[in-house]
């Protein structure tokens, strides 16, 4: 069945709200407006204002309230409109949700799901284009997932809700309109493992969220010139599935890491370090990274395009480390 990412996410939420009376959706404009990305359109009429709960623009309070409600026996899904605004709620996510179980000696679990749109690519300029998945993924106590496919948009939420700990779901804003085939695989979506979306023998391209499509596009181009790239969708950003990544790199002996976050301290940097720690002697070339340029995201289209990872940059990076392009430069 063909559907958009938005529709897959909508069905996942609908299932969750239908299946469990403890589940409710809370956030800015989730109800009367229909969701800022129209994911929850129609839900207010169907489930009512108690369970489709519009909030004031108080990210800190309503995210904290979601955490408290989870402690009080509910299964809240808190929608923070975008990762940019989640910075206003960072204290509750990091200082409360993430620490609560360990700091209380294991007395409390916090089964809250926090959804947020992320990423750039729509000329929304610097304050609306962040990718801070790496920040959240660096914090013990929370889990972080980034569904990039229709199957995962449809299947991951159920697993996130079943998890007793806080789970943050990153939805790249450019994905909502992407259409694709929903396979039966969605029923088996987990929130533990990375997934090989395209097998290959020559190089491993690791991506997540909004860059998965670009990685696949690059792999298609490379195939035309005889380079078989294996594309790994990380899917779960904390805890990272080292095993899948390392097994792929051991096989292909080369890796290009694609990440829409800024390069410094990026998830790509973390994965690179893990490859060094676990597969250094299996490598035939230095690991390469394709990240966002370290500038605030510009508004003008040509500048934004230049700042973001693109399929062409991934292709170029692969060529460099497979010896099919220019000589590898240590700086790039």
């Amino acid at each position, binding site marked *: 069945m063909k559907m958009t990412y938005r529709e897959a996410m909508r069905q996942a939420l609908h299932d969750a709200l239908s299946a469990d009376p403890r589940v409710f959706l809370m956030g800015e404009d989730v109800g009367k407006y229909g969701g800022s990305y129209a994911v929850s359109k129609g839900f207010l009429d169907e489930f009512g204002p108690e369970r489709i709960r519009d909030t004031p623009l108080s990210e800190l309070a309503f995210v*904290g309230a979601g955490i408290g409600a989870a402690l009080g026996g509910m299964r809240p899904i808190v929608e923070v409109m975008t990762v940019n605004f989640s910075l206003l709620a960072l204290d509750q996510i990091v200082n409360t949700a993430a620490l609560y179980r*360990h700091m209380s000696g294991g007395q409390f679990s916090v089964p809250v799901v926090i959804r947020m749109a992320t990423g750039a690519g729509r000329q929304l300029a610097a304050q609306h284009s962040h990718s801070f998945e790496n920040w959240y993924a660096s914090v013990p106590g929370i889990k972080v997932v980034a569904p990039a496919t229709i199957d995962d948009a449809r299947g991951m939420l159920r697993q996130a809700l079943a998890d007793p700990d806080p789970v943050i779901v990153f939805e790249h804003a450019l994905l909502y309109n992407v259409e694709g085939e929903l396979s039966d695989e969605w029923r088996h979506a987990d929130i533990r493992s990375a997934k090989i979306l395209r097998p290959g023998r020559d190089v491993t391209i690791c991506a997540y969220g909004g860059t998965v499509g670009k990685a696949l596009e690059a792999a298609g181009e490379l195939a035309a010139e005889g380079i078989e790239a294996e594309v790994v969708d990380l899917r779960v950003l904390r805890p990272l599935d080292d095993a899948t990544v390392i097994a792929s790199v051991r096989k292909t002996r080369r890796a290009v890491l694609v990440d829409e976050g800024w390069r410094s301290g990026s998830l790509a940097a973390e994965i690179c370090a893990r490859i060094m720690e676990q597969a250094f002697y299996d490598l035939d070339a230095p690991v390469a990274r394709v990240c966002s340029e370290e500038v605030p995201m510009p508004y003008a289209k040509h500048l934004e395009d230049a700042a973001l990872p693109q399929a062409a940059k991934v292709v170029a990076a692969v060529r460099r480390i497979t010896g099919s392009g220019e000589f590898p430069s240590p700086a790039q």
Partner: protein
Amino acid sequence: MSQSNDTMAVTVPRELAVALLRDMVRIRRFEERCADLYGKQKIRGFLHLYIGEEAVAVGTIHALRADDAIVATYREHGHALTRGISAGAVMAEMYGKREGCSRGRGGSMHIFDAATRFYGGNAIVGGGLPLAVGLALADKMQDRRRVTAVFFGEGAVAEGAFHESLNLAALWKLPVAFCCENNFYAMGTAVSRSESQTDLCAKAGAFKVPTLKVNGMDVVAVYEAARQVTESVRRGDGPVFVEFQTYRYRAHSMLDPDLYRDKAEVEEWKKRGPIHNLTNRLKASGALTEEDFLALDTEASNEVGAAIAFAEAGTWEPLEDLARDVYTESAR
């Protein structure tokens, strides 16, 4: 500052009045020993003493039911002891022992107890308020007539979390008792140096939350106010804000040289001490003899002595358990 009321009649039954006195003395003796143990380096980290403010926790918590929830601050030993968490478990926590109520992961600032619905122990000023809103939301959504009492200092009133939480609780008519412990100093900053509006009730009133200003040095007044507040909150009339005017006799923490307060001011407040105030009033009415008081005081000292012995005899959590309870499944 209101006048001394050492001769004012005690308007609650004798048994209750003695119970209030006993808990205040327990806290006082417990914390005096804490200060001593801090000097001996048995207790480390930050230690914030409640000495002088005992009436607020004791009067309020005696008005709560067993299934109500408490969200407290980093100055919460008094609340924990009054709530019925054993002095041994609290002391062992401060020693960092496994027998501590948070297995030694939290220390003085992070006392938790699921059995008595004691949700911390929060060391971020204002951090507990959104959590309390969420606990109350869960109660309301599940039709439970419970109260969530959240304690915070007047310093928290300057935080966004305060304003967001009061608005949300008022908007959704949630069963929260906002208990502001106004001791007039946020660390070293006097309320008049940090607030354009020093009438804290006026701030809460702006959210259409009913307010009450109470002499926090008079445990009977605190208890009676808390009874009134919890009744209204439990009835479903929405949140209430209470300002308890109180004073800490000790510095902000053990590391604070206390250079920002006039010594005469401290001495003036000490004359209104909650323990001798109630003792004098009970004696004046013939409800308490000096022998009664000494017996109660000895009992408190013995309890603290036993708590210290329990903490001394406690064990260190094995290093293998370092990562236990970061996530829920890691406990299994």
